[in-house]
């Protein structure tokens, strides 16, 4: 006796044995992650699911009403594991993938919004060092307190496994994606475990960061007069930094 699960797959209902369901779920997850940076991801996944539904229907008969692990394994071997798919994808598809290093905020090592950890990932540096530099810039060298929230606003968050790899400047290859998935990169959850004190300390910054997108059109009006001067200097410096940091192509190859 085996437990079965009922799934609604591409608008058809199938009964799967429990181990078959787990295997299928695992497979579809890996496919999902593999195509995560493809603009047509939804469509490709739905095509693959359609094909799966078609294959499963062929396996079923009056005397066999449940999909078992063998059926799933058969489907996976003909559709191909992500390793096999990436090995066979046509040359132009592979060469079309970006090799540029991108600056992202790193959600996995963040304290506030992942700005420092993202910059650290970009340069392959220790996030703590970058955070110290931030503190020195703001408190010792008189950078505007807006420095951090502004970077927060400008730098996008690394959401997909592929983006997390690009963040470190590695080519988006299957091996890298696999490694990222195996490391169980948590999907960016807005509130990771933070100590209560840290939460209270960071609250004002988070509030500023959250509301910044709404304020930004009238950004200048929200700056204190004393801040405006240093803000202008800061803007110039940021622009300089961006010219150096953001738009230089990372070394190719590898």
């Amino acid at each position, binding site marked *: 006796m085996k437990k079965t699960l009922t799934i609604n797959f591409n608008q058809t209902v199938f009964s799967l044995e429990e181990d078959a369901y787990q295997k299928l779920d695992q497979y579809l997850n890996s*496919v999902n992650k593999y195509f995560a940076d493809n*603009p*047509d991801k939804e469509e*490709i996944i739905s095509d693959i699911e*359609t094909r799966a539904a078609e294959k499963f229907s062929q396996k079923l008969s009056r005397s066999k009403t449940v999909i078992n692990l063998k059926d799933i394994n058969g489907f996976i071997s003909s559709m*191909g*594991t992500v390793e*096999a798919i990436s090995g066979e*994808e046509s040359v132009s598809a592979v060469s079309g993938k970006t090799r540029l290093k991108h600056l992202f905020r790193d959600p996995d090592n963040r304290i506030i919004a992942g700005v420092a950890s993202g910059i650290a990932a970009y340069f392959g540096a220790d996030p703590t060092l970058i955070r110290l530099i931030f503190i020195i810039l703001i408190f010792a060298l008189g950078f505007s307190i807006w420095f951090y929230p502004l970077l927060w606003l400008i730098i996008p968050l690394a959401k997909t496994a592929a983006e997390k790899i690009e963040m470190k400047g590695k080519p988006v290859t299957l091996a890298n994606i696999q490694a990222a998935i195996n490391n169980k990169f948590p999907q960016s959850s807005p509130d990771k475990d933070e100590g209560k004190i840290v939460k209270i300390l960071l609250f004002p910054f988070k509030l500023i960061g959250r509301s910044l997108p709404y304020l930004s059109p009238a950004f200048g009006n929200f700056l204190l007069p004393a801040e405006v001067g240093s803000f202008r200097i800061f803007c110039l410096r940021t622009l300089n930094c961006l010219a150096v940091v953001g738009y230089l192509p990372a070394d190719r190859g590898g």
Partner: protein
Amino acid sequence: MEPFNAANSQSQMRKGILEFIVLLIISRGRVYASNILDRLKKNELIVVEGTLYPLLSRLKNEGWLAYSWKESNSGPPRKYYSLTAAGKKILTQLTLTWNHLNQSVGSLLNTKKGKYEKNLNH
């Protein structure tokens, strides 16, 4: 780098012509993804089915393919693919290239051993 061996070389050759083959199959009549896969598998031109779907979406984005949904007698509606005008143009170009390659390789294969040496001596 991928290892340099016969299997890898063969796989590179297959990859290189897959786009051409898929356009060709679609140009021969109303097909949906599973028809294309059947043709490819019968001719041993594809190893895993999963490579076809991203390829179809890329060809569609290039504007070479279009599809329309049609009801099917068994199961959910199917996407039937057809070539656009641009797709037909590309297919003509690729066919020319294929014929050219085929001829060149064919003439090399048919060249008898020693022929070039003779030519060089005279």
